[in-house]
């Protein structure tokens, strides 16, 4: 692996991590559905041509084949755009992988607004919500090169089905190389006392960090948590910060219904009702545009987070 902060694209981190894992485990195979070039898994093919299985434009079949491979001891990492991973192959993932308890890692790329010019048909606002309702499934949305690298290794170690989002184009490095990551354990990026911003994914963790600075300038102390695992939710951390700050803003690059904000509010409303706002896409479909345009259009900006935080914090 190159140094993690030198990567230009997250997809290359994903591919290089798989290459690293595959070196010591010949059961690791990588699959794609005619999006190898797009998802970076082409890099894996170059390293292990015999362990890269391209299913063609046939996502449902790919996930079904992955389950069959898993039943014979292989560990398939199958990727496609998040919209098709979540929707086109949902029944196959639900039954052949999850219900049948097979060790399939499904990776959905171009989360939310990052689908940009591919537009509404390709813009996965729905994947987290759909995946969350699959019993026992681990659901992740890493935000930077370090967390993507370490969580990819963690899901390899974990025995069981996983859905992970992959921000494919562009990269950012938020963490130091020695930061530890554990499935189901959120990371406190910045501590604070007035309000807690619980975010995930590259787009919204970036916005939450910006919002924290803007709030600080106005004398509001915000904690920032990277909730890279949506399921199982780190309830202890949510409870700790709900108690400590008394106000929570969730920030996610996806549908407001049933996503990260949904998970946090489900937990809090039953256990310790807390003032909350969800910064997320409000029950609409995606559309084409640049990422900047789309973030504005769907309200996924640091300004919206600041606005939400201020509405909760009593002066």
């Amino acid at each position: 692996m190159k140094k993690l902060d030198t990567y230009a694209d997250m997809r290359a981190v994903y591919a290089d991590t798989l290459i690293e894992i595959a070196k010591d485990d010949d059961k690791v195979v990588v699959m794609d559905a005619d999006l190898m070039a797009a998802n970076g898994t082409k890099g894996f093919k170059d390293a292990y041509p015999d362990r890269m299985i391209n299913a063609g434009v046939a996502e449902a079949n790919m996930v079904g084949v992955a389950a069959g491979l898993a039943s014979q001891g292989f560990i398939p990492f199958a990727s496609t755009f998040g919209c098709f991973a979540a929707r086109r192959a949902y029944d196959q993932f639900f039954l052949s992988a999850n219900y049948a308890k097979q060790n399939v890692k499904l990776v959905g790329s171009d989360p939310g607004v990052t689908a940009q010019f591919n537009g509404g048909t390709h813009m996965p606002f729905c994947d987290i919500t759909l995946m969350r309702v699959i019993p026992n499934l681990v659901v992740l949305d890493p935000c930077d090169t370090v967390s993507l690298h370490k969580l990819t290794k963690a899901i390899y170690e974990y025995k069981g089905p996983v859905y992970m989002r992959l921000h494919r184009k562009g990269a950012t490095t938020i963490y130091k190389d020695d930061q530890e990551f554990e499935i189901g354990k959120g990371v406190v990026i910045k501590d604070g006392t007035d309000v807690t911003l619980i975010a995930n994914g590259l787009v919204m963790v970036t916005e939450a960090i910006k919002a924290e600075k803007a709030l600080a300038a106005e004398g509001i102390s915000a904690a920032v948590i990277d909730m890279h695992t949506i399921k199982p939710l780190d309830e202890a951390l949510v409870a700790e910060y709900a108690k400590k700050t008394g106000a929570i803003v969730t920030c996610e690059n996806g549908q407001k219904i049933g996503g990260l904000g949904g998970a946090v509010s489900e937990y809090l409303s039953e256990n310790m009702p807390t003032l909350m706002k969800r910064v997320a896409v409000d029950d609409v479909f995606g559309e084409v545009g640049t990422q900047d345009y789309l973030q504005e259009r769907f309200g996924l900006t640091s300004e919206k987070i600041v606005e939400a935080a201020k509405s909760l914090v009593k002066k």
Partner: protein
Amino acid sequence: MEAEKRTFLEQKAKEIRVLTIDEVGYLGVGHIGGAMSVVDILTVLYYSKMNVDPKNPKMETRDKLVVSKGHSGPALYAVLADKGFFPKEWLHTLNHGGTNLPSHCDMNRTPGIDFTTGSLGQGSSAAMGIALADKMKGNDVNTYLIIGDGESQEGQIWEAAMFGAHYKLGNLIAFTDYNKMQIDGETADVMGIDDITTKWNGFGWHVQRIDGHNVVEIERAITNAQQVTERPSMIVCDTIKGKGFAPGEGKVGSHSMAFTYETAKEAIALLQGEK
């Protein structure tokens, strides 16, 4: 076909290619390869075969087209603009925030688009539904469908194929844009679909195989297909990805390509220089 008509259609196809290159080049990135490979099919459909009315895009008794390989929207937009469904200036709004012309065909945004596509395979089933609806209503019109060769790997294509034959959709005429390429390489290397004509035959369709860049052959194949009333028709078109766009012609990389407006203008000049 009379020489005059042939010249007209060939000239029109060239104009559509010019508009398409300009449209995508103005934005600077897009699915130019699969757009250029269907231009001749679209040209024969819209300038010779299809009964449509730009002033009344939802006319009940129009012929319909589903471009199931929805990423070829930009070529269809060029045709629809040229036909007068909307102003040509719209072409420069491709994929801009708030545009009526998104990457993938959208029936709720663009006048003249008969079905929303972009998730490969889905347009095929929708086309069966449209054809069935016209049959049930007694409308004597055709539904046309264009699918890709990579797209033919989707199981849904074959579910629709079975359906079309079972319901004897003689009013449905489909084209496979057989440009032998998809995103990750040549179709034969990624996931072979051959023998594609035998497959469609096996599903009970009337099948023809033609040069998808020859307007005379396209016209003749459609005419043949229109005579077949008890079965749907598949016209497998041998095509070249990126056809007529010099920097991308015959290249896998033309699938989705970034290029400057300068490059677009050079490619257009080259195309117009050909006789």
